[in-house]
């Protein structure tokens, strides 16, 4: 499949989204709201639940599958308070020694006047710093679109998993095409050169695992993902925290040179 076809798949409004994965991955899910500073961002859903018999904190971006839901979720574009809610729940997870699972699905952090007034850049930056030293296992999964810094704000982890038709990019293919060729309609070409598919990123060591999607139902994909998460959490549980954090640091340290 061409890269841009996967972009279309990743953005498809019928694709399984954050809430679907939360419901199927976990039992006894309890949602928690608000950043304790300003408000509650609908674009990010967070809470605790059981992954098999293990309590975990889950933080998911949700785009919404109906018109009303999409408005409530701001089309999956988080505001600073969404990232601050996520960080609050991560710190809570650290306190109670629960692993953190982040599900990424956004075209990007919200570009609005209020978001800038409340420090969109600062909110993302703080997550990058704090996630790097969060003293509990962190796994991130790109389930749909991984849009730049707004996606990375939930993407500093021990391992990053991608669904096969998910994409993860520094800039949208449309944005790239309009800068590069002054022509947003060349997005398909841009998607190719940016190397944004799960297979491309695995090959380059940016992510660890690709969960196959071809000829699989959403339920089967989710169950494969669950098995992968359990396998990785079992491995992390055996590491002393200092080693876990050393490996997390090195995971990013080695990228690029």
């Amino acid at each position, binding site marked *: 499949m061409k890269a841009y076809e996967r972009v279309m798949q990743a953005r498809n409004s019928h694709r399984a989204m954050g809430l679907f994965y939360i419901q199927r991955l976990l039992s006894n899910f309890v949602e928690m709201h608000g950043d304790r500073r300003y408000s509650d961002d609908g674009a990010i859903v967070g809470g605790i639940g059981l992954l098999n018999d293990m309590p975990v904190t889950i933080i998911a971006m949700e785009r919404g599958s109906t018109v009303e839901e999409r408005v409530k979720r701001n089309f999956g574009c988080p505001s600073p308070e969404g990232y601050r809610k996520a960080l609050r729940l991560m710190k809570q997870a650290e306190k109670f020694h629960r692993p953190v699972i982040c599900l990424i699905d956004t075209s990007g952090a919200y570009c609005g006047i209020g978001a*800038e007034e409340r*420090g969109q850049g*600062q909110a993302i930056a703080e997550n*990058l710093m704090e996630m790097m030293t969060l003293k509990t296992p962190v796994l991130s999964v790109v389930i749909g679109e991984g849009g730049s810094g707004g996606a990375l704000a939930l993407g*500093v982890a021990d391992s990053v998993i991608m669904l096969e038709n998910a994409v993860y990019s520094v800039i949208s293919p449309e944005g790239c095409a309009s800068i590069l060729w002054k022509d947003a309609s060349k997005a398909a070409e841009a998607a190719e050169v940016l190397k944004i598919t799960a297979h491309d990123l695995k090959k380059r060591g*940016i992510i660890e695992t690709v969960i196959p999607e071809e000829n699989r139902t959403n339920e089967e994909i989710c169950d494969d993902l669950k098995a992968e998460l359990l396998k990785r959490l079992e491995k992390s549980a055996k590491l002393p925290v200092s080693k876990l954090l050393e490996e997390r640091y090195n995971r990013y340290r080695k990228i*690029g040179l």
Partner: protein
Amino acid sequence: MFGLGKTREPENLDVLMTCKACAEQTTYGTLLQNAMVCPSCGAYMRMRARERIDLIMDEGSFSEMDKGLKSKNILSFPEYDEKIQKAMETSGENEAVVCGIGSIEGVKTAIFVMDSHFMMGSMGTVVGEKITRLFERALKDALPVIGFTTSGGARMQEGMFSLMQMAKVSGAVKRHSDAGLLYIAVLTDPTTGGVTASFAMEADITVAEPNALVGFAGQRVIEQTTGQKLPEGFQRSEFLLKHGFVDLIEERKKLKYTLSKILKLHR
């Protein structure tokens, strides 16, 4: 008098430069002596990294790190090789950041200075690597870090490798911070995108130059997304100060004094 950095030596001090704000022409030499501030209207010109180092560091104290690191076209991205080549020629630098160790009023400090004359200060793997190495070195030697930011954001031509630099640098900043060491960021015009969403906003003390554009999203994108007209002064330093995201705004000519004052309060 501010000395000229090595790469600027061939430049003619008598060459006339035009102020974008008031269109007044001034010689480069006069501007340099005036910290690249327009003598007629007070507008701030964007400084090159070496001009900034000459302005801020004690004379002859700066020793550069990793000067030779050059970007590679890792994704074979169209026209990237040519862009790097051109940026090296026009800026006289190998990349969009200059890093090193020197002293400010006698206080030994690690410093990085981004340069918007090199591909708009965009952050690729070399920028990420150089700044990471600087923080790691500062951690090892227990030095404070001062960082001057200016950037159009992550460098699209390096795809996800450039996005990952945000996490990489943030990790190094965090380790330096956890060791109880001081990091001061100085936000200069313009600081946007991935740099704002990482190390520009991770300092203990955040200083900004007056009227610098500092934000995450681009103004045109915000207008298109929201259909709203942007308020006066939106995303300028004074706007960030009002909303609580910078500690202080300092004039360029007083920056060295203010930075040294802060450094000395941390000894």
